[in-house]
């Protein structure tokens, strides 16, 4: 416990981490607030439409007669669900593929590398469009869209993990572990995994922002999840298509954009700060010590 505390203490000295942490907590709080929303997220014409921000409607109302603030709380929640599901499952695939390919080598490595490379060279947005059309009913759910995105984002990170494992495999402590009679599975779990986790962690965050970005793009094309389900992407899409800009409903348009920026910047800073903390080279860099 004390260790965790110390880690946080250290991390909080980086202003980027602090800012990012505060923003994330704030957004999580907003997402949590959705539970108390007086309005149903998908119902329309519940309030007078096109009202500017006021005490009653902190972020105004949109042209569909929805309260933008409460829509936002749902949007953050839903976008985060997609992002976390995508990041979580793609990390699982990436870790398994990366470690197996790196540690086993040989034919297994070949096969996995080829599969990974193949997913990387496919024109992914188009394939995603095709798959989201094929799996229409299935992909409509938030978490399933996350899964779908997960399927396309593991390859690069698996590659990174693989090369990390390749070099770890040669490290002396792994040899010692072999000499101490540990089974392959145990070595992977105990000796390799902890070293891979920093990458997993930082790529998890990066993958989250990628997934959020992808969701926004898909929403713009009218694909992905049901457009009446509020996410940052669908909010933005509706605002743009319903001419929020020219109707002068800037609060409707700006809310998802600013939220996206805040979320991205926070995630980026979080990932940079944590990866610098975890990577001793970068850590020395931060305190300025030469190797």
């Amino acid at each position: 416990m004390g260790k965790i505390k110390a880690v946080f203490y250290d991390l909080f000295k980086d202003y980027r981490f602090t800012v990012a942490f505060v923003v994330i907590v704030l957004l999580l709080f907003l997402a949590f607030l959705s539970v108390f929303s007086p309005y149903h997220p998908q119902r329309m014409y519940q309030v007078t439409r096109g009202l500017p921000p006021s005490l009653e409607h902190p972020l105004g109302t949109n042209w569909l007669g929805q309260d933008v603030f409460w829509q936002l709380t749902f949007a953050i929640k839903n976008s985060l669900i997609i992002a976390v599901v995508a990041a979580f499952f793609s990390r699982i695939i990436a870790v398994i593929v990366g470690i197996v390919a790196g540690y086993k080598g040989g034919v297994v490595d070949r096969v996995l590398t080829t599969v990974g490379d193949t997913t990387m060279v496919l024109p992914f947005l188009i394939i995603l469009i095709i798959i989201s059309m094929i799996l229409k009913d299935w992909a409509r759910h938030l978490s399933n869209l996350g899964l779908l995105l997960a399927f396309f984002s593991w390859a690069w990170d698996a590659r990174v993990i693989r090369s990390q494992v390749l070099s770890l495999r040669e490290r002396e402590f792994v040899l010692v572990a072999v000499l101490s009679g540990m089974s392959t599975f145990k070595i992977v779990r105990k000796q390799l995994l902890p070293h891979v986790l920093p990458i997993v962690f930082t790529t998890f965050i990066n993958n989250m922002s990628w997934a959020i970005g992808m969701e926004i793009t898909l929403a713009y094309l009218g694909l992905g999840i049901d457009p009446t389900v509020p996410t940052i992407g669908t909010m933005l899409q509706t605002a743009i298509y319903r001419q929020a800009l020219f109707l002068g409903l800037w609060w409707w348009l700006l809310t998802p954009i600013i939220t996206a920026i805040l979320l991205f910047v926070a995630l980026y800073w979080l990932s940079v700060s944590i990866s610098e903390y975890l990577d001793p080279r970068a850590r020395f860099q931060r305190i300025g010590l030469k190797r």
Partner: protein
Amino acid sequence: MRIRKWYLILTVVVLLIGFSIGFSQTLPPGIPRNETLILPFLFAPLPVPGNWNQWAGWRAQNCGLHQFATEALWTLNPNVVEGGIINALAAEPPIYNEDFTELTIKLREGIYWSDGVEFTADDVVFTLLTVRDTEGLDYHGPMQNVEDAYAVDKYTVVVKLKEPNSRFHAYLMERWGALRPMPKHVFEKVDDILSFDFNPPVSIGPYVLKDYDPGGYWVLWEKREDWQRTVTGKLFGEPKPKYILFINYGTAEKNTMAMLRHELDAIQGTAEQLITLLRMSKTTRSFRENWPYIDPRDISTRGPGFNHLVYPYNNKDVRWALALAIDIVELAISTYDGMVAMTPGLPLVVSKTFYEWYFKPLEPWLEEFTLDLGNGETFKPWDSRAPWRLLEWAQKIYKVNIDPNNEEEVRLTLGYGWWKYAPDVAEKLLKKNGFTKKGGKWYLPNGEPWTITILRGPDPTDMANIVILGIAEQWKKFGIDVVFNVSAAASTLALNGKFEVVNTAHGGFAGEPWGLHPDLYRCFNALRSDFVKPIGEATLGWGGRWSHPKMDEIIKQLEVTRWEDEKRIIELGLEGLKLEIENMIAIPVFNCPITIVFDQYYWTNWPSPENDYARSDNFTTWPQLKYILHKIQPTGKK
């Protein structure tokens, strides 16, 4: 070093200034803006830019090709006041023999192709026979009925049919698509008509192709020197614009910007776009000066359609209950600010002609129409005052220029009327069928919660999608959950019957009426019982898979009714309409509202209620556009 840097900066600045002065306008010098009409190209980009062979594939439509460069034998008159059919390349209406196996077509004289060759009976004969004999051409299927076609003289064609068909001329009549004559002198030299690109196209309309975008986003047309030798020239005189540019600026907000830049003269967009443009530009106006702005006279209706092979939508009572759960006035206000015209019948569009032909005779029946609620209870659902309620609401908010005492004006602006908002009756209908309501939510008779899945397309600006979202709200309010299956493949899914409820615009309903002719054959024909296919198989008829022996009979009757016999046609049409309404086969709510905005900066005298020379529905996509170009006036602005 320093000098070089300054030199670089200077060059960049000069370049930038050069760029900004040189090309800030869309149109190049030599194409004066004030002689050019710029219209939105809604179906851009062209699938195959540079291929103008409209006989091989549905392409190059709505960008001027079929509006300005081709003519059909007959075409619908865009002038609603006049109504009826214009004899275009044909000089007279179609002449059938007694048993509908022979069709004689009289052609107009003195019409020339743009390359100076005269249009004659040979062109028509060549077209009919070539299409019949070439697999893969459009209308190849329908032309299989042609036994023979020959020219009696230079301006008379006789078509012999294998089977009797009283509507064969409909293939040759322009509404949106038609088999239009091809220039024989060009096509007879072509080996493979299927892959012939017909570039540049030889025109028979008032304009010729000037240039087109290799990317397919714009097409520029130039007025023919010899416009007098075209159908329009003969009928209406000189079209005003020297050039017509069809262009797609991309997304909706870019079209908005373009019109604000005066680089677009007309646009049919969303309600939001309409409001935006009216608000942000002083030179714009819509069809109406005041609320409800729109021109309601589209020939298609919108609303949910049901899959009649899927429970519980195969139950008439359920369908009626869903209809009665909709508050039409609230729906109109919430979705379109009330700028819509309501209609109770699928092909019953809101227009002067349909008002006279169909609504007036139907109204007494509607007033008396009764639903059986079980237990001996009955209910008269017709609400003829709904448009007035909408009007009352509007008068409180907008400046409205409609006389509430002028029944015809109200009905032709805001619709005929609709079904009463009667959730209590809907409840009774459902409970009669074993449905239950618990905690404000409806449950199916088997105890499962009732969730309606609506299939729809992805375009959020599509009127049909906006309306269906509003309807979903009404149903949710009534206590039924609604989810959407948003698919770009909605039409195909609908054809295959893979849906519960679908938007009429997405394969929900096939046949739109002619609009200016009372014949409803093409609407009813989609409901033929032999078109009904099991779920999973594509149908050529209506995806909703409804059929009725009585409807089959009406279709059969229409087939042997002459096109000119309007009285009999209306009689049969009324019967069909009543049958559709009785069964509530789909829930039509509104005519598609024409949210058109005109920019009067360069061109003026656009159609308006006071100057009602043309419908403005799908103004820029429909071929009749060429019949109004003599009406618009240049403002003379530079």
